[in-house]
């Protein structure tokens, strides 16, 4: 049994040696669900902190309108959608990973966001707009790194070839869009139904 800290620390290994890292994460159980959940929570926290505490020069958000629930959803929803769409598609397409493994791998792939964005927050107070190029450079690096890791995580977890990985990822993205569409449709229909019954209720109340 590995300690919780060791599992968490393993993410640092994964981000620099993704091929080994994701393999061992899945087959050697060097990571765990609890560490994965921690990383997701840290990512959410990073996003909120970045919105709230980035220095004025780099913070274009209207802080008075910061809605923490929306922030949480804006990270959690795409993440979960990705995992679910990934699982749905790969179970059909000979993927080897289980849902938990997909979840773990994707969560570990988010590590660069936390690693780079958190230190950037204090740094944003120390640099001017002219030096902002560095700030945005690192921001972009963190995103590119994460995207690469997510692609690799899919490839290694399911033991796919490169070509199949990219095909699957296209499929996953389409699947995410479809799920969002169905979700919106569903809420809209529910709202309509609710509205319908509410109107009937009001009618009855008015009459008697």
């Amino acid at each position: 049994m590995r300690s919780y800290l060791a599992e968490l620390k393993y993410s640092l290994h994964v981000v620099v040696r993704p091929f080994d890292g994701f393999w061992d994460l899945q087959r050697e159980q060097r990571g765990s669900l609890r560490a994965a959940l921690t990383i997701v929570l840290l990512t959410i926290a990073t996003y909120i902190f970045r919105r709230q505490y980035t220095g004025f020069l780099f913070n274009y958000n209207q802080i008075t309108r910061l809605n923490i629930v929306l922030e949480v959803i804006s990270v959690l929803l795409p993440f979960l959608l990705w995992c679910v769409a990934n699982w749905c598609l790969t179970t059909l397409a000979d993927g080897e990973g289980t849902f938990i493994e997909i979840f773990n791998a994707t969560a570990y792939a988010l590590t660069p966001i936390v690693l780079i964005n958190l230190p950037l927050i204090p740094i944003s107070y120390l640099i001017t707009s002219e030096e902002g190029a560095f700030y945005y450079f690192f921001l972009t690096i963190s995103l590119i790194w994460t995207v690469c890791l997510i692609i690799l995580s899919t490839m290694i977890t399911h033991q796919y070839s490169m070509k199949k990985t990219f095909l699957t990822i296209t499929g996953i993205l389409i699947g995410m869009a479809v799920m969002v569409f169905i979700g919106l449709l569903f809420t809209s229909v529910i709202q309509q139904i609710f509205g319908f019954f509410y109107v009937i209720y009001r009618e009855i109340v008015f009459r008697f």
Partner: protein
Amino acid sequence: MNRINIRRVLLLVIMIMLLDPFFPIIKARVAYESYTYNYWLDPVPSPHPYVPVEELSGELLGVGDFDTPSDLFVAHNGFIYIADTNNNRIVWFDQSFNFINELQTFGDNDSFNAPQGVYVTEDNHIYVADTENRRIVQFDQHADYVRSFDRPVTDLISDTTSFRPTKVVVDGADRIYALAIGINSGIVEINPDGTFQGFMGASEVNITPLEYVWRRFIATDEQRQRMGLILPTEYNNLYLDNEEFIFVTRGSVGLSDYGTDVIRRLNPTGVNVLRQFGYGDPIGDYFSRRNPNITRFNDITVTDYQVYTALDGSNGKLFAYDYDGHLLYVFGGNGNRFGNFRSAVAVDQYEEMLYVLDDNKNTITTFSMTDYGEMVHSAIRLHYEGRYQEVEQRWKEVLKLNANADIAYIGLGKAQLRRGEYQEAMQNLELAHDRNNYTKAFAHYRREWMIEHFTVIMTTTVILILLLLFINYVRKLRKRWLVKEVKR
């Protein structure tokens, strides 16, 4: 004792209540709201920059009612000229609206036919855009007929298009710039000798790529025939500013044109040089679902320090911007109360007065600047004239009246930046979301801070390095000692 007091108080209260109708408290109720937009382009209330003073009809001024007047021009001496279109005359008054003269017939029993524009030069020559007579007429300082300019001789205007000028300005070299109905190639420029010089500052055609593909490749010939031509939007008014640049407004913009530049400042070669450094571009109201009426400017007036006030005829609002394009305030509104408009068509100003002509009410509404408006204007004027020392005080006064005046925070921040008070400048500029100037102030501040704390920073760094070296050394010693232990 106590009892008497209560009685007295009661008596007093009753007296006040009885006398109240005879001493009405005068409240400065103005029939519109004044506001400005903040960094997020949300409307923010602001004190009134102008309040209405009078609504003057022609009858009241002793010249007989106006009939759909279309232009109002204030000459450099403060005289107010009205193009009283359907009465076929030009009337003018002095600053206090005493009737001076009118032009109805001139020359050999000649007269106007629905004149829509009037302009007066520095030496009091009057130029009239005599629209339906298809000419521009010039009068001298005694209001005697001098000459008229007919349709310019050129191939650039198609023969079927008649020359019906609506607005006219004349620059210091007596060149005439006119706008005419149906001519959408820009401003018609006429030389002092009456020859045609060319078009200036043509407004380009706006077409979306999708529409282009549709029209060019997909639509059938039949469909194409039914489609309207895409024409550039004509300018609907122009104003010659103190630097002899021409401000123009584009009014007939549809909802799809929202966000395109509707105010331009054309340099002598016809290039738009309007500075746009405000929170949003100077396009009037920023679109919101609550107010789908987009702004349609139909006149503009500019002060000597480049504060321009544009009139939104369809909503009856006036928008003022400074030379950098910062929105100063918005005021006015349509309605039937005193100070409202029904169909405002022209605006001009003289010193602290602003005049708006309404072609439905057939009145001139006069507005006078409030203390607030006065402060804002004087601060901008001082800045324009380069008197930065005094500017700061003005902006502070503005902020006392309106803590939401972002323009004042910017002005104050810039002044403090200039004086070297970087920390205060940073505070003010952050309040106004002016990142450009903030980063300048911050760079200076950081440098000062580094110099001030250089010794502390260096000492800490050196001590830290030494400490690390020491720890490393101790570790090595320990290792060596452990190895020895093992060997033993």
